[in-house]
């Protein structure tokens, strides 16, 4: 069931600032399961669901945007130069396929030779005969492209797609909203926008969201690959369950929250991993908002982040759903002050 939605989410495009397609899918899918659906002015999609009794206010956030690029210049021959939206590894972008609006496909090539590669050295070829044809296809300055939509099965429960970061998180949030039927308190589930350009959606969300506990759903680096630096590092593995962030560049988990989540996982026999990594998620702005909101960043392990071939394990998704339901059900037992 969950995989049908996951594939649909991955096959659509939502480069930061242009999340309408994915927001539309999510709101349509979840409308029957929630009490209220609306947007704020930046483009965050907010869904509210009230429980059967009094209890804590719970905020769930998963960003729906993905990295991509924006056209800065089209030369007379029809080659397209671009800037990145969110961060790419130029070496991984080289040779990959990208898609503009109306599903116009292009490939990324380089104009320079040598080892060093910068985003500015790359250009896109959509096969056009000249600038006029590019423009006829609706591509102009400011047009946005994503990595070409893809979703495929790999061995066992492993899947590959261009944008499991963070459709995996969005999918977990959707599944939880569908399965929850008997809980206390108030849920506010938000598909946030513009995370990949600096957690901007969650900054706006933090201005108005009132919550006793927040759970941020995102993905993290699985380093169980030949790139693994040292076994001494705290490492996150594919298929070994959701990882909770202890610290990143903008967030630290409180020991109290850590014990709470560990207790839930243990009580329900669910696997749990730890994440200590650079960068940041929507948890950064959210845990600093209001009087400080106790926050959990629950991440799906993922290989090859920000490339066109992101790999996840469906078992991790299922365990993430179960853990989140556990957190919601246990949070309410703590009363309205949260865990």
């Amino acid at each position, binding site marked *: 069931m969950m995989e049908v939605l996951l594939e649909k989410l991955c096959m659509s495009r939502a480069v930061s600032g242009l999340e309408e397609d994915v927001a539309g899918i999510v709101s349509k899918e979840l409308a029957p399961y929630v009490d209220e659906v609306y947007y*704020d002015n930046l483009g965050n999609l907010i869904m509210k669901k009230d429980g059967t009794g009094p209890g804590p206010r719970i905020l769930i956030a998963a960003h729906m945007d993905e990295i991509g690029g924006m056209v800065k210049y089209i030369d007379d021959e029809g080659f397209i130069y671009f800037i990145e939206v969110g961060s790419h590894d130029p070496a991984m972008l080289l040779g990959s396929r990208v898609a503009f609006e109306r599903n116009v496909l292009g490939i990324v090539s380089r104009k320079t030779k040598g080892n060093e590669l910068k985003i500015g050295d790359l250009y896109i070829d959509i096969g056009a005969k000249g600038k006029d044809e590019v423009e006829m296809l609706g591509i102009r300055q400011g047009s946005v492209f994503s990595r070409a939509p893809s979703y495929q099965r790999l061995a066992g429960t492993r899947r590959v797609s261009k944008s499991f970061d963070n459709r995996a998180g969005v999918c977990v949030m959707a599944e939880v909203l569908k399965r929850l039927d008997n809980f206390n308190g108030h849920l506010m589930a938000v598909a946030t926008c513009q995370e990949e350009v600096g957690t901007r959606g969650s900054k*706006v969300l933090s201005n108005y969201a009132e919550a006793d506990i927040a759970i941020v759903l995102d993905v993290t680096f699985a380093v169980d690959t030949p790139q693994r630096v040292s076994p001494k590092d705290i490492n996150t593995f594919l298929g070994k369950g959701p990882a909770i962030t202890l610290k990143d560049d903008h967030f630290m988990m409180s020991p109290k929250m850590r014990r709470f989540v560990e207790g839930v996982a243990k009580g329900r026999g669910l696997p749990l991993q730890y994440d200590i990594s650079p960068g940041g998620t929507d948890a950064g702005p959210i845990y600093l908002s209001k009087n400080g909101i106790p926050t959990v960043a629950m991440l799906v392990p993922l290989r090859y982040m920000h490339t066109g071939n992101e790999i996840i394990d469906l078992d991790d998704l299922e365990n993430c759903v179960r853990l989140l339901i556990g957190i919601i059900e246990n949070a309410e037992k703590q009363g309205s002050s949260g865990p």
Partner: protein
Amino acid sequence: MKHLSELRGISGQEKEVKSFINDEIEGHCDKIWTDHLGNLYARTNGRSDVDIGLFAHMDEVGFMVTGIDGHLLNFDAVGGINEEVMPGTVLEVGDERVPGVIGCPPIHLQKKEEAEKKIPIDDLRIDIGDVNDGIQIGDAATFDTRYKERRGLALGKAFDDRIGCYCLIEAIKADLDVSCTYVFTTQEEVGIRGSQVASNNLSCEYAIACEGTFSLDQPGVPKEDKVQAMGGGPVITITDRSVITDARLRGTIIKAAESCGMPYQLKRPFTGGTDAGMVHLSGMGVPSCVISTSCKFIHSPCAMASLEDIKNSRRLLIESILSVSGGL
């Protein structure tokens, strides 16, 4: 423009600019007030469906005195200034406008490899001659540049963002029948701080920031990067490092430019930030856009701009306010 350009106001010391703007707009607005960070607000009430916030920052890049050793002053840059343009720059230091120069060893005394090397700011000093006329640590030092106009071009300092201030002042003086809050912000050049405080205190449905921005029409820039140039008309931002502008608001502004028949340019490099970067993240999110004037050599002792561009930016701002006033 001449007055605005020659006013002195590094980040955190915008008093002179503020009092000039206050005098200019008095009588054209319903209310003028400030906050504790020094932002200047001007309110106009009108018969419009929506409330619009307009932003321009008063501060400019410059220097601050950090140490005094007789006639030699240690200093730090306030805002981003290329260290290569510093040696030889003539400055006015402190409230008394003491003339000084950032010392530069004459070429006769330099070894070849020294001459090729950039001197780090820590090794540079402002030299004010021999007597210290009451200059204190913390005093501002600003570029000593007089404003000049010739053949449709303007030369002067602080075009970033006195051009924006100029456009806002002109919009206020146009006495539009639109509900607007005009905010002249402080401390933009040190990390868009003024507008952070301003956006805590404002509630507007749309926001437009006015900026003096850079020009890419310079030697050494590859053709695919020469996308915004002095003389090419107002620059309407799609994205910069701080904001992805609201598509509907941007569309309205582009339409306004087209119906005026003026040239315009679209900005999309992921560098540079503006007050819009702060404002659009406030409250429930505020749909925001930026109208800029493309200038050569900003953040240096002397920038260059086209008078036609400045005129068009002013007109585009006014037309945009009118277009947006009925709602989008």
